């Protein structure tokens, strides 16, 4: 018998999901997070298992890198670049966070200017050496860094190194000789793509994280080793894939956004299990909501992540749009008299008024309680009793200022909160050219199912899906994921003079590099390779991605590639320019070592219509309805119910609107249709 475990370390709770590969049995539990030393809470939670010997794999979402970046507790980094360009990390992009905000303060980079150094060397835009590397200067610089004694890591980024990494690699060699043991990140390894500021920023972040992540992982590894599962622990990267602890420590910028990817991977798995190709997931927590998509069975990967506004980390990450709207979002009235929700949140402490922990502000959760959508007796499966009177009193205070009655006000609060989340859905759908009508909305997080039906309606999404254990959906994603390496490189060519051999050579290097990275971490089985190119009309500055299924570039598949580009441009932007020169910019490779996936247990087939456990009053757009309340645990495969209705489960509740219908699929997902 063997068990796969997913561990998601959140702000308040660490979620655990275990899957027994023999019986198919899935179990969920939680432990309080121990923020000072998260491994303590993890080990406590693992203590629930009688025998860790059965663990064949444990995968962990970690916030170490995220926290180090957000709290600026990384290493003291020295930055080395081309003569003349040490101010690039400070000049940044030259724009500002928002218009008209005269109070804005430009974000500082992760290095001090006094620790930024230049060496004589320069490549041209075509990759020719304009100024050879001054190796002596590098050695002198190393001596200064050694004498300084405070530098904990070095980042190197020189101009045009994405074309020829020779100078950067040589700088690293010299530094390694002169400064043994010093962590070094070079931009060609971290992000071999053009645009020097973005590449520099990403490389600096990698160096900034190296010492802190290494140290943390060393401790973690020791604890896991003591428990006898040292070799079985993987960590989740920002691309949703798994890496070993050692692999992640070598390239820590890869785990910037580890935890939140779980829900997206889980959504992709749902796509495989249900055969629904296009899903959009919203993971609604107390203070924020994460949105992301799975299109044609694949998650969307982005390179436009920023730590703080203006400080990019451009390595490929699952594209997750986060907004400050959650169950704890607080109602307020602005100077023009408009009701607004959030982004201020009551968080877990003091929490919404209904938590009875001293919070008096009216939150989304309070409004849901007032409207009968959340039952005060069945919050977190009855573990926590809510104070309905306190919720009502809090909402009443807002209602009075607006001259509305309490129910009306609570309903307006929910609508505005929904509208904020709609903004996030629009950002991941319409703003990427995706049509909501082609999607199924997936609810994740305890609060997700409460709002899923509202959101389907206002976003024009025809179908909804509430998975089993929506509160632990993210940790569930971890047990289902694979090891994955994403590699990109800028190799610029134009269609007029496209050199297929050069492209093949570069692509082959990328593929080999990705496979090597997987193999060096011990992922040797079932490796799948996905190649793609990013191209544009010559002169444009943003690219369209085209998959490239072949091993080599041939005359035929190149011609086909240009054809596909014109078509894709037409489909995405409404026009194409036939005959125009096309420029290829980046080559991309994704290598996946496919792991064994748990099989979901099927529910028994229904033999009778489901019976409600009780009835209660719930407020909908047209006022109060007395509706049936079902217990999800009683559902069988093929059950169907019609809205308005409520489905309760241990840590969540689904509110079905009038006119909507809900069915139960083979593995217990609630499938909602408009």
């Amino acid at each position, binding site marked *: 018998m063997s068990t796969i475990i997913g561990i998601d370390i959140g702000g308040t709770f660490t979620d655990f999901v275990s899957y027994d590969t023999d019986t198919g049995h899935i179990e969920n539990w939680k432990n309080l997070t121990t923020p000072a030393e998260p491994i303590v809470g993890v080990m406590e939670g693992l203590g629930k298992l009688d025998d860790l010997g059965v663990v064949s794999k444990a995968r962990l979402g970690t916030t170490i890198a995220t926290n180090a970046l957000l709290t600026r507790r990384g290493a003291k980094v020295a930055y080395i670049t081309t003569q003349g360009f040490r101010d690039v990390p400070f000049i940044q*992009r030259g724009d500002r966070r928002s218009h008209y905000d005269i109070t804005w303060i430009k974000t500082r980079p992760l290095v001090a200017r006094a620790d930024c150094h230049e060496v004589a060397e320069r490549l041209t835009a075509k990759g020719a050496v304009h100024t050879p590397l001054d190796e002596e200067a590098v050695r002198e610089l190393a001596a200064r860094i050694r004498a300084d004694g405070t530098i904990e890591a070095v980042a190197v980024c020189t101009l045009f190194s994405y074309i020829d990494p020779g100078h950067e690699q040589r700088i690293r060699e010299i530094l390694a000789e002169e400064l043994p043991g010093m962590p070094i990140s070079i931009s060609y390894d971290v992000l071999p793509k053009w645009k020097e500021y973005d590449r520099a920023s990403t490389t600096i972040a990698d160096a900034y994280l190296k010492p802190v992540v290494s140290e943390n992982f060393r401790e973690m590894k020791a604890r896991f080793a003591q428990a006898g599962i040292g070799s079985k622990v993987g960590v989740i990267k920002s691309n949703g894939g798994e890496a070993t602890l050692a692999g992640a420590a070598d390239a820590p910028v890869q785990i910037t956004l580890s935890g939140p990817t779980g829900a997206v991977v889980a959504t992709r798995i749902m796509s495989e299990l249900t055969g629904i190709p296009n899903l959009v997931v919203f993971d609604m927590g107390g203070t924020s909501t994460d949105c992301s998509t799975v299109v044609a069975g694949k998650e969307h990967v982005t390179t436009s992540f920023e730590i703080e506004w203006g400080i990019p980390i451009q390595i490929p990450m699952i594209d997750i749009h986060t907004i400050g709207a959650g169950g704890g979002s607080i109602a307020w009235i602005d100077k023009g*008299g408009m009701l607004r929700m959030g982004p201020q949140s009551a968080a877990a402490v003091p929490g919404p008024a209904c938590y009875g922990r001293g919070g008096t502000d009216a939150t989304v959760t309070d409004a849901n309680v007032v409207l009968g959508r959340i039952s005060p007796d069945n919050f977190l499966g009855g573990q926590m009793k809510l104070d309905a009177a306190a919720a009502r009193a809090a909402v009443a205070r807002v209602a009075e200022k607006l001259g509305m009655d309490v129910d009306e006000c609570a309903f*307006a609060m929910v609508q505005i909160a929904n509208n904020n989340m709609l903004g996030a859905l629009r950002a991941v759908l319409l703003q990427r050219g995706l049509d909501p009508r082609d999607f199924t909305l997936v609810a994740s997080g305890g609060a997700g199912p409460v709002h899923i039906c509202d959101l389907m309606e206002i976003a024009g999404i025809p179908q909804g899906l509430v998975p089993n254990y929506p509160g632990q959906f993210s940790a569930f994603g971890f047990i289902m994921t694979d090891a994955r390496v994403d590699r990109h490189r800028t190799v610029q060519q134009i269609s007029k003079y496209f050199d297929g051999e050069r492209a093949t050579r570069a692509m082959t290097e990328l593929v080999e590099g990705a496979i090597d990275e997987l193999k060096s971490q011990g992922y040797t089985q079932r490796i799948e390779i996905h190649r793609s190119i990013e191209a544009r009309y010559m002169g444009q500055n943003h690219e369209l991605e085209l998959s490239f299924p072949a091993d080599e570039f041939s005359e035929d598949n190149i011609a086909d590639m240009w054809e596909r580009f014109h078509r894709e441009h037409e489909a995405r932007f409404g026009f194409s320019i036939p005959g125009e020169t096309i420029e290829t910019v980046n080559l991309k490779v994704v290598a996946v070592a496919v792991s064994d996936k748990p099989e979901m247990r099927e529910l028994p087939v229904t033999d009778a219509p489901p019976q409600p456990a009780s009835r209660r009053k719930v407020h909908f757009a047209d006022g109060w309805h007395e509706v049936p309340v079902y217990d999800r645990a009683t559902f069988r495969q093929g059950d169907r119910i019609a809205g308005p209705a409520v489905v309760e489960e241990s840590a969540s509740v689904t509110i079905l609107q009038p006119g909507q219908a809900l069915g139960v699929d083979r593995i217990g997902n609630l499938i909602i249709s408009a």
Partner: protein
Amino acid sequence: MDFVTMNILDSAMVSICREMGITLMKTSYSTIFNEALDFTCGLADMSGDMIAVADYCPAQIGGMPLLVKSCLKEIPIAELEEGDIILHNDPYRGGLHTPEHTFFKPIFVEGEVMGFAVAIGHIAEVGGMAPGGFCGEATEIFQEGLRIPPVKIVKRGVDNVEVWKLLLANVRTPRVNYGDLKALIAAVDLGERQMRGIYAKYGKEKIRETVADLLLYSERRMRAELEAIPDGIYSFHDFVESDGVDSDRHYRIQVEVHKKGGSIIVDYHGSSPQAAGPINATLGVATSAAYNAVLHMTDPTIPRNSGCFRPIEVMAPPGTIVNVDFPAPEVGGNTETHPRIVGTILGAMHSAVPNRVMAAEGATHCNFVFGGVDAETGEYFACYDLEGVGWGGRAFADGNDAVDSINGNCRITPVEVYETRFPWLIEGLAFNVDSCGAGEYRGGVGYTKQMLCVNREIICSQMTDRHVLPPWGLEGGLEGGCGATLVQKAGRDDWQTMRDAYGKPSTSRYSNVAIKEGDRVRLVMPGGGGYGNPLARDRAAVAHDLREGYISPEAAGKLYGYREV
């Protein structure tokens, strides 16, 4: 008011504007669009009032209402058909300057025009006497490129080929212009399509009503902000240096701000008569600048639409530098005079709203433009590009370093993109030490970009400012560092101004200088003025600036009275 529908409609419309902008950014050809994001996307109602806009370029946002209204005077709504797209760029018909091209497409619902999807974008090459659209020595609008009155570039969904031919025959980079114009069309197409979806969902009546409420709401919030500012009459002035034609003359910008209750009047009487050279502002620019200044002094979260502008009135006497008469040149009015006006208004208001102003910022976009024939490909290239400046110090914080001046919000083109596109080799981007005006809160620093010409010849022009008159400080803060443009001819050691090297009247505004292979150009960007007495600056902050190399040991001692311990 139905606040819920208003909230939903406002965010839906702003998100449509943002989607239009993303289309523009992803499909356009010029770096000024796709790197610098010098464009604006908005929605207007049938009277031309702006009802929603996405945050791209502020200079264009304030100008949008007048622009659309002016066009509708010439092409009345009755003459619009479904699928038409209007193009326009004429500064003397409500426009801002010739490079700014406005596209708008009527939104038809059941045969009736309900409003417009609008996109305004900076086209880098517009013909005229100098490649890149900024001829520092122009004396007539006709030298500043092709003027396009409102014309239908697309008629009932089909390209109006005659208009395209005429446009593309008059510019140096037809291939690039074609791509940029197509991108602007794709943006308004998207806006129009999405808005029709919104109309289908809510219905004409509900939207008309809600949009009217939305404008009223913005107006109400703007008035509430203005009411919080002490009533009074506030004045201030500043100068624009030279006009590229008459080198030693400075042009006065005078503002008198009358603030009473929930209204504000910006009166420009006393400003200089219009200049012979291209530093004049059109009424559209002067109005947009006043809006921009007021938006900076008020809550940035007020939904941006014509409602916020209702409490603001502008008085600009014709024939002056702030309301130029035809046919004077005016391309620099939009980039240089605009931020200077904003700074002057902020200066006037500093005693009234000390936490909502800053000392003078660099207030120039550099506007070093060039064109030529690429020796390798034989293709003509043209570039409009801009650089950042130092912000002024504030009552609560230092000025930001190296940021685009406040009438734009554009990005600096990366070196690796710049050199891939244009035959220059950039030799450095470095902060100018001591360019930050000293103060309790110092100004931001400017930087210097040094470039080596690697083409046989590149024809360069510029329209910048602050080579002579430094950015002023406030409340005892000192002046920030000036900018400069210097050239080092191949084989020489010395650096000369454009005046000395090429006999141009001005160092900061000139046209058609032929830079040869091996010549170097140095663009020095100004810093910002300081705020408050430098002696009152936190000692740790002085030590930090010294350690980090923002100020020299001399400046630390002399200006801040700082001695290292």
